[in-house]
């Protein structure tokens, strides 16, 4: 048996991040009380340098480690976005963590390891790598939710998240083993090749796809596998909610693309119908149930479910334009979610979570600038032009119309009108209701800058969506 040492340079971002995670861990354990601060700085530095490394190597493509690692445009862009998003997430969450005695070094170590898991998922070329990356990411997130031990709801959320997450991983793994049984391969390219070659047992293949789709649906939070999402979003400390709501969804989207499009793209007629079910149910249930919520974290969780429905809409079209639209939607979604939960963190203070809708009454008078940012974010989530959320919805619906699934497109438009109700309700509360608390809202300067950048980014991307759209379109076909 001959063996050549793989070209490890392609995997430099992951290797750098792993080394830095270990250094951060050592720093935390040796620095004692200053460990948390050092860990925070080190984790931001790690994410920044990793982003630079990825940016430097843009355009370089290839596979290494015997095909278990893929570096292509898709992985580079998503990894870059994941690093940047997580930098912002950590920036937002610091003051929240400090106010609740959660400002610990371990939090940041777990955050880096989790980011590493996401990056591994994004550039996975093998079913095993996808699964291991997913486990690495999820394991860190379970622990981050459970870290707030003084809170009963957080512990409950962590338990639910862990048990359902483990169940979903089991489903995914079972699906992978069935696919292995049919194709005799676990490498994504080899699976794709054997499907192209035909002569496979299609009954067993579709049986395996069922389990893969269930696993993906669980991780994305698509109906009917969504029940964990509102509970976990509500129960976790807001900083952790922000973390698990933003970047992991991009990673889960990448997993869906790698598995369904990269590996099983040739068998799309099997998963297309399943995704139609998931997508339509998610859009309807997410938008309708969100109306009944009084807790804004829960409301945003249901809003996430509906956004997932829209992302799946792009994937199920099984066209290159559809995949690009879904990717655009996933990126835009994470930006908007970042702002939405960032706003909750901004409003909260020691002993006050700001997670009730009533807490937003009269925000327009307490701090007009923050209210304006929230207005932009809510309008964008509702899909009102000229904000970027509108283009995201437009592109996925267009991809569905292009394959003549008009009825689904009509459902999508109808539910986004229904969904606009609860986004607009927040705007009504902010501007037309009297505030319950009189004092003006103060926030640290870095948070103020952050939320402003976030809101303005949503506005600017909406006015000039061309470059991001072109970027997404240039990536496909994989």
């Amino acid at each position, binding site marked *: 048996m001959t063996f050549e040492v793989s070209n490890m340079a392609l995997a430099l971002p992951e290797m750098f991040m792993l080394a830095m995670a270990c250094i951060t861990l050592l720093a935390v354990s040796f620095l004692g009380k200053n460990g948390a601060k050092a860990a925070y700085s080190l984790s931001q530095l790690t994410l920044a340098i990793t982003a630079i490394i990825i940016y430097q190597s843009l355009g370089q493509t290839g596979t290494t480690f015997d095909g*278990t690692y893929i570096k292509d445009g898709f992985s580079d862009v998503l990894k870059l976005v994941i690093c940047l998003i997580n930098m912002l997430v950590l920036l937002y969450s610091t003051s929240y963590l400090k106010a609740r005695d959660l400002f610990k070094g371990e939090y940041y170590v*777990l955050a880096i*390891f989790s980011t590493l898991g996401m990056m591994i998922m994004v550039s996975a070329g093998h079913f095993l790598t996808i699964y291991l990356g997913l486990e690495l990411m999820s394991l860190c997130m379970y622990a981050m939710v459970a870290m707030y031990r003084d809170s009963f709801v957080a512990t409950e959320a962590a338990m639910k998240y862990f048990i359902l997450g483990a169940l979903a991983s089991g489903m995914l793994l079972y699906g992978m083993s069935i696919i292995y049984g049919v194709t005799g391969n676990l490498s994504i390219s080899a699976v794709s090749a054997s499907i192209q070659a035909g002569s496979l047992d299609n009954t067993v293949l579709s049986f395996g796809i069922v389990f893969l789709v269930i696993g993906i649906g669980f991780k994305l939070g698509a109906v009917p596998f969504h029940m964990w999402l509102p509970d976990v979003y509500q129960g976790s400390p807001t900083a952790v909610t922000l973390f698990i709501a933003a970047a992991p969804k991009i990673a889960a989207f990448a997993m869906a693309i790698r598995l369904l499009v990269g590996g099983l793209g040739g068998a799309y007629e099997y998963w297309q119908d399943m995704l139609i079910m998931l997508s339509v149910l998610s859009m309807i249930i997410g938008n309708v149930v969100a109306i009944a919520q009084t807790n804004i974290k829960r409301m945003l969780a249901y809003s996430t479910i509906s956004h997932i429905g829209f992302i799946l809409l792009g994937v199920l079209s099984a066209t290159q334009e559809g995949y690009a639209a879904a990717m655009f939607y996933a990126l835009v979604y994470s930006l908007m979610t970042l702002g939405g939960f960032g706003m909750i963190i901004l409003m909260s203070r020691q002993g006050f979570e700001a997670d009730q809708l009533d807490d937003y009454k009269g925000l327009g008078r307490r701090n007009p600038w923050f209210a304006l940012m929230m207005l932009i974010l809510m309008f964008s989530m509702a899909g009102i032009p000229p904000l970027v959320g509108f283009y995201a919805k437009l592109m996925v619906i267009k991809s569905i119309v292009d394959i003549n699934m008009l009825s689904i497109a009509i459902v999508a438009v109808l539910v986004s009108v229904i969904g606009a109700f609860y986004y607009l309700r927040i705007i009504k509360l902010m501007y037309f209701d009297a505030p319950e608390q009189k004092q003006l809202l103060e926030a640290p300067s870095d948070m103020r800058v952050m939320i402003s950048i976030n809101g303005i980014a949503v506005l600017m991307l909406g006015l000039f969506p061309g470059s991001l759209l072109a970027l997404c379109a240039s990536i496909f076909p994989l």
Partner: protein
Amino acid sequence: MEQVIFYCFAALLLFASSMVITVRNPVRAALFLILAFFTSAGIWLLLDAEFLAMTLVLVYVGAVMVLFLFVVMMLDIDLAPLQEGFTQYLPLGIFVAALITIEMIAVLGASHFGLDIVAAPIAHPEGYSNTKEIGLLLYTIYVYPFEIASVILTVAIIAAITLTLREKKSKSQDIDKQIKVQAKDRVRIVKMEAVKKQESES
């Protein structure tokens, strides 16, 4: 002969795993799980996967399950609430389970995975070492997944320590603090007006 052994082990495995989820006592459930591990190790032995079989027995039965048994015995689990609603959900549960079983038999049965479709594994030559083969694959082609698995284990221990370690509130002396102490930290001097006791006149 091999078939007889396989079916014995398979039947025992099915029995043990269904007992794991149906017995009421958690200690018994853990013991049945050990039986399930043993029988699946036996099935792996039939496949010439000695290394995996031995690892399963050593790691899972020897270490994980023993620890697990300790934990289960330590915990005082109230069984009554666990069984609430069992009969209520039983018909629906049986219906769903039966449906899934029938579907799985239809898909995974001999018509799709029979010997005429998936060829029987070829017999290994004399001196074949399963352990060596696994080692060769694990450290060459699968080195990347192998490394990720090690990272996952690291994260597991970080997470476990983070979740269980409490800052110790020890009662031991802190000499530095004792020396630094000053009178004003310990004694509070309260100035009081001297008040003459008023004599009640009546």
